[in-house]
């Protein structure tokens, strides 16, 4: 029995001027799943995630989060969502605690649960010791953690992470991957990356984008059919390039 769908992208298309950045992308995410959005630079990963987070409206197509249409009921859809953009949206002159509380209030966390959820989010992201520091004085890795904490503090059923492990050292990367895995078991996570082994380690399914088009949607095992994941990624993108050239 399949678990319920928490996020679905339906024929998402987005033009920047006349250039088509994302072209007819559809996929779904179920509860308990971690979905990896894979692609080279400029493949349209971030644009797709922005459309799913409701910060960019698609030229055509629709996105649904927990059965709420993002264009028609943005307030309900967005309250089921935690989003870490490509550049973490941090106020450098705020303290970590103040910043996270502000993010929680924006997502309508009840005042009596605020302290508990702040504590939990800091614990999960390894931020317990730096609650009183200014965000601007933290290192890049810790800022990234604050960005993730901001996305999960209201315990949303869907978490969207745009390149969550960029700028982290290997040990931190490992911790964050464990965290993503834990988030995926409780809810559902979609993350973008260009690191193949990351997808292999934490994701249940992968979606591969190339020049805005979806070229692969399947489980990690499907992707592993080929000799190894790296070559299959290269092969998939190369196949498509040849197809394009043949046309």
């Amino acid at each position: 029995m399949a678990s319920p769908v928490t996020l679905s992208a339906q024929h998402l298309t987005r033009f920047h001027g006349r250039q088509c950045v994302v072209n007819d992308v559809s996929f779904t995410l179920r509860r308990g799943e971690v979905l990896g959005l894979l692609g080279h630079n400029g493949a349209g990963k971030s644009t797709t995630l922005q459309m799913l987070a409701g910060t960019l409206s698609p030229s055509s197509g629709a996105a649904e989060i927990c059965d709420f249409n993002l264009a028609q009921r943005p307030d309900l859809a967005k309250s089921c969502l935690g989003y870490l953009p490509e550049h973490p949206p941090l106020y450098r002159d705020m303290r970590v605690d103040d910043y996270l509380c502000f993010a929680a209030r924006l997502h309508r966390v009840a005042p009596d649960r605020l302290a508990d959820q702040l504590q939990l989010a800091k614990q999960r992201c390894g931020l317990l010791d730096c609650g009183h520091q200014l965000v601007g004085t933290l290192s890049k890795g810790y800022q990234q953690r604050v960005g993730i904490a901001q996305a999960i503090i209201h315990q949303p059923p869907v978490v969207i992470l745009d390149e969550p492990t960029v700028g982290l050292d290997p040990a931190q990367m490992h911790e964050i991957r464990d965290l993503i895995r834990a988030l995926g078991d409780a809810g559902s996570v979609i993350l973008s990356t260009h690191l193949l082994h990351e997808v292999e380690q934490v994701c249940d399914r992968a979606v591969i984008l190339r020049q805005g088009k979806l070229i692969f949607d399947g489980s990690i095992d499907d992707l592993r059919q080929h000799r190894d994941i790296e070559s299959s990624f290269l092969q998939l993108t190369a196949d498509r390039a040849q197809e394009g050239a043949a046309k």
Partner: protein
Amino acid sequence: MILTLARKELRSLFATPSTWWMLALLQIILAWFWLARVDDYLQVQAQLAQMESAPGATIAIAAPLVNVLAVMLMMLIPLFAMRLIAEERRNQTWLLLAAAPISPAHIVLGKFIGLLAMLSLIIAASGLMMLTLLLGTPADLGLIASNLLGVWLLAASYAALGLYFSAITRQPVVAAFSALAVSFGLWMLELGSGALRALSPNLHFQNLNVGLVSSVDLCYFALFIALFLLLAIRHLRREQEGR
């Protein structure tokens, strides 16, 4: 939700050193002007005593002070307001608000109230300065109140204008300059003649400055503030819908 945003805005205004610096300079200028006016008044006091209906201390000292405050605020508010939205866009923090389950109306009103709270502090400080008149003479409290109301409404109008320009651009400096240019233009309208004068906030402020509280002026300020807040909300909403 609006209050959450307003509180955050107020805190971040007071977290920047430039705010304190501007407030300090403003207080120094106002205090200097205040003492100079008091000095002038004391010098001509003997002659005034012989006149039949001589101007009182309040209209001779307090009203001009508020006039100066109005001009200073016209120049300062665009500098405070420019950051409100344009800087969030530039620092990429805008996405935090855009991805949150709040509407553009919440954002605009929250930021407006936050800025207005800070401006109210400035105005309250100058109100205290005027109340020191009571130490030496009976003051016209009604006139002081109408002056404070007038400058508060004027400040709210400039804040709404500055917020609108901050909403339509990514560059804080462009926002500040546009808002300054428009408020300066409106001020020049008042100095000119003809029906266009009625469009200038300064004309309506002048009535309150001499102690005349009329519903026409109050309605004008309410409409001016509402117009620019609605324009800002509309712009953000259309931007979210992808034009």
